[in-house]
């Protein structure tokens, strides 16, 4: 799995560039490295469903973030905050020390626990008659989770439409009319 490790190092470098860069568009494009790296890792671990989803969502979020942030303002904060940085580094160290106990309990990479998923792999095609096992799980066995996912997309769209009800082009048209008078 040397490819996965190379991709992980690339993703860490991309995230560091996204934090440290002074330009907003540069930061957004460097953040794209993280998502596309995750997509390639899913493809290497033989999960093409998740790879397609991650690739498409990454492109969409890149377009939306550039449209939302990239053109408007390029404010950056350059002041150094010593106390806040040191407190966060110490808390991060505590978190890493305590999470080591959990990391040693995880089964090794490449040998997962096959208790629930073995049942789906054995009986899934016979019970549902669907060749794509991911579709069989998310739309038949776990379709209540899919209902929650649809509700999340619905409420995100409705909320953003509800927050900004005032149109831009109406006000600019009024201003143009006033200038003509």
């Amino acid at each position, binding site marked *: 799995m040397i490819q996965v490790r190379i991709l992980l190092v690339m993703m860490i470098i991309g995230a560091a560039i996204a934090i440290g860069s002074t330009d907003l568009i540069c930061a957004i494009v460097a953040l794209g490295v993280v998502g596309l790296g995750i997509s390639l890792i899913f493809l290497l671990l033989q999960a*093409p*469903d998740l790879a*397609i*989803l991650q690739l*498409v*969502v990454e*492109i*969409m979020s890149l*377009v*939306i973030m550039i*449209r*939302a942030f990239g053109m408007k303002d390029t404010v950056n904060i350059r002041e150094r905050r010593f106390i806040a940085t040191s407190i966060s580094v110490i808390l991060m160290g505590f978190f890493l020390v305590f999470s080591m106990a959990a990391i040693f309990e995880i089964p090794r990479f490449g040998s997962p626990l096959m208790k629930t998923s073995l049942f789906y792999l054995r009986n899934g*095609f*016979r*019970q*549902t*008659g*669907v*060749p*794509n096992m*991911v*579709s*069989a799980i*998310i*739309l*038949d066995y776990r*379709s*209540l989770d*899919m*209902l929650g*996912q*649809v*509700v999340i*997309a*619905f409420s*995100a*769209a*409705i909320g*953003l*439409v509800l*927050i*900004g*009800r*005032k*149109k*831009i*082009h109406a*006000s600019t048209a009024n201003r143009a009319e006033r200038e003509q008078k």
Partner: protein
Amino acid sequence: MTVIVKTVTRYTDVLILMFGMYFIFNGHLTHGGGFVGGIIVALSFIHVMLAFGKEVALKRVTERIIKLCVGLGAISFLLIGIIGFTKGAFLYNFFRKPGVDYIGEPFSLFSSGIMPLMNVAICLAVASGFYAIFIALVVYKIGKRR
């Protein structure tokens, strides 16, 4: 945008839309599904808006239709679940006959009961939802109340 972008968009946009439709209607046979197909369909509409501007993009598919589609997708997913109550449970596959495991013929396009219908409902909700988010960022004024 320039003439090159507009000409390329005019030819490739229908292909992107068809690729999304392929993902939706074959979601229960190959990789993909309603969520991925919905986002690709939304990307094809965003492509038109980025190339030609918002007046051209909102002329045929107006904001009323998009808001209607957002509600229609979520409501139809819920309705498919509620119809399952007639056979016993919420979100039950109500085309299933008792004693028979497969629904329809496996590996064919019209099979497996409610799954293609659910894929279409998810596609409607997701595609119009993400397109509405993009329109809200472009058209509406957020913050700065006078």
